[in-house]
């Protein structure tokens, strides 16, 4: 909450006096606008986000999140590139002409997403806290609903916090024109909705190491089951000469189990410098093992201004069933996806956030990030020499936010 100096005094004394003050009941607002754009006219997202928080005298917190995203741009369909021009029909019935030698993308992709979440965090007694929430989001072809709950206990003079939580989600896949049958030929009948359920169990440890350092370690186990395909993704069957003979809908296993270990260290080097380092390691039974390493340093520039540069590195193994395409001389496997998000790749992000305060003591921040995804491409066929099934891309993220 940004308050004038007089308001601060009124608030802090009213809190002490046990008087319910109108100030103490005020909401703290955070609004932000964000743009995400990928190179080559691929995915573009414009977002508006709002976070409202209210804390009472006992430190119980209510927070409300709401967001609107507009998504558009071209998205790779999983169809293999070829030196022959291709004509495809997108799931929504649009005809897509792909010139020879280009990566097939669906450029009719357009969606809007509405999301909302409410979280209530409450102290039970001096040691125990409890936090529960509900989440919701809706796109034209997707509905997500979720609930979560965490209990935490502080120990050791509040220097240690242990927490355990559970997240449950139920998502409806409401694909345009219905969901396709996995492995069926492109253009086959699509029908009906489907759903998936996710469960995530989380154990956490936060430890104050010294006056200057605090460490966090989280482990989570997640399990998702149900319809896990992307209803708009295909894979191609290609002859050794590089001719695409057919395109079929992808097929993924209907269960995915994963383990994630996350560690972070916040270190205050001096009064003006705070460093945050984190490492996230993920392993799952699809084989998409990944590692994320992130480092940011916040420099206080004085006068309520600060700058925080950051770098992030990500690497991922391909899913066991990922194949950029299937050779026409091989049989079609039970599980196959050519989705570039399941391929092996590395990604690099560099960015910075600048924060400042205006005359009315509102805290503003502007941040920019540059992201580069570099896939590891495998040779296709001799007839596709020089073509890439996964070209990789660059993306820029710009956002402006204010707390008031």
């Amino acid at each position: 909450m940004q308050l004038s100096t007089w308001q601060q005094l009124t608030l802090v004394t009213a809190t002490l006096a046990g008087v319910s003050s109108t100030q103490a009941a005020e909401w703290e607002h955070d609004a932000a606008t964000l743009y995400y754009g990928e190179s080559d006219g691929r995915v573009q997202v414009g977002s508006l986000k709002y976070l409202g928080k209210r804390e009472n005298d006992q430190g119980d917190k209510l927070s409300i999140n709401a967001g609107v995203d507009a998504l558009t741009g071209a998205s790779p369909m999983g169809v293999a590139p070829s030196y022959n021009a291709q004509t495809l029909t997108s799931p929504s019935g649009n005809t897509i002409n792909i010139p020879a030698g280009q990566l097939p993308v669906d450029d009719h992709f357009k969606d809007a997403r509405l999301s909302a979440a409410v979280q209530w965090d409450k102290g039970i007694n001096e040691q125990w806290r409890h936090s529960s929430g509900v989440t919701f989001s809706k796109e034209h072809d997707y509905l997500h609903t979720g609930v979560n709950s965490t209990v935490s206990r502080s120990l050791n003079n509040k220097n240690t916090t242990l927490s355990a939580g559970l997240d449950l989600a139920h998502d409806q896949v409401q694909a345009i024109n219905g969901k396709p049958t996995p492995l069926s030929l492109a253009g086959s009948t699509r029908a009906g909705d489907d759903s998936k359920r996710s469960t995530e169990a989380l154990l956490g440890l936060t430890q104050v190491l010294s006056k200057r350092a605090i460490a966090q370690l989280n482990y989570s186990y997640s399990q998702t089951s149900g319809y896990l395909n992307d209803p708009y993704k295909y894979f191609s069957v290609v002859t050794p000469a590089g001719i695409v003979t057919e395109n079929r809908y992808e097929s993924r296993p209907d269960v995915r189990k994963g383990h994630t270990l996350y560690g972070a260290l916040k270190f205050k080097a001096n009064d003006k410098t705070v460093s945050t380092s984190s490492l996230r390691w993920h392993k799952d039974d699809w084989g998409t093992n990944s590692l994320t390493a992130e480092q940011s340093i916040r420099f206080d520039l004085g006068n309520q201004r600060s700058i925080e540069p950051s770098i992030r590195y990500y690497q991922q193994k391909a899913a066991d069933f990922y194949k950029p395409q299937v050779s026409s001389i091989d049989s079609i496997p039970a599980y196959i996806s050519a989705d570039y998000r399941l391929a092996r790749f590395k990604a690099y992000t560099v960015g910075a956030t600048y924060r400042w305060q205006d005359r009315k003591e509102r805290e503003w921040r502007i941040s920019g990030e540059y992201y580069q995804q570099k896939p590891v491409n495998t040779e296709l066929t001799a007839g596709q020499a020089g073509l890439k099934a996964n070209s990789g891309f660059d993306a820029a993220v710009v956002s402006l936010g204010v707390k008031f």
Partner: protein
Amino acid sequence: MASPCLVLLEPAVEFEQAQSLMEYLAQEVFRIQQKYSRYQTDSVLSQINQKSGQNTAIDTETYQLLQMAQVLWQLSKGRFDCTSGVLRPVWRFHEPSTLPTQEQIDELLPLIGWQQVELTHSMFTMHKGMQLDLGGLGKEYAADRCAYLARERGFQHCLINLGGDIATSGIRANHEPWQIGIENANERGQVWQTVPLLQGGMATSGTSFRFIEVAGKRYSHILDALTGWALTDLPRSITVAAPNCTEAGALSTLAMLQGDKADEFLQQSTRPYWVQW
């Protein structure tokens, strides 16, 4: 607390009721006094002081008091500082009147400064050797707590006076303002002016009775935490009315630090005030 305390109750209540409330409020005052006493080695405050240089876990009440100390430090731009109590041994406001030397003060200055403390909801840390003193806040806070507890017990028309720090649980039973006599700063025990207080709190910061005079210069007991020196040429007394006693006390203390600009400062606060020079 070593100062006269008084509870006014309206309308007339049974003796037993009044006595039970008095005991209840006295208990609260003693609780706060013991918790934040510098003299009792097992008090929460003493524990924090003994653990200087280390993290100390704190409860919500202590956090709120320390947050208050922090806001006062910010508002005074560092001149009011709850870590300035280390200066006490070199400033002696009784006979014989001698001033500390600059060397004595310079030696202690590194141990003063709220910028060297860290405060979170559950933890407080200050550098080794620093000392915390909440003496400047405790009495006003205790008065507010008493008013709050009286109100909770259903006493809507109650005034608490802890040695000049006043808090009320509400307006008077006849809806008239309470009448508060402000002591004459130059004549102990005499009323200078009687002022109305509808509800809320009132506090006075005075320099008339605790000071030293050296070479014709009058040094008040109010120290500037930035320089370590006692302030001179201050108003004799500043009384402020506010929605609660803690705020009134904070404003009168902050105004005192402004010296001859006290009036200007108090006007900005928009609270009623009375200054004696």
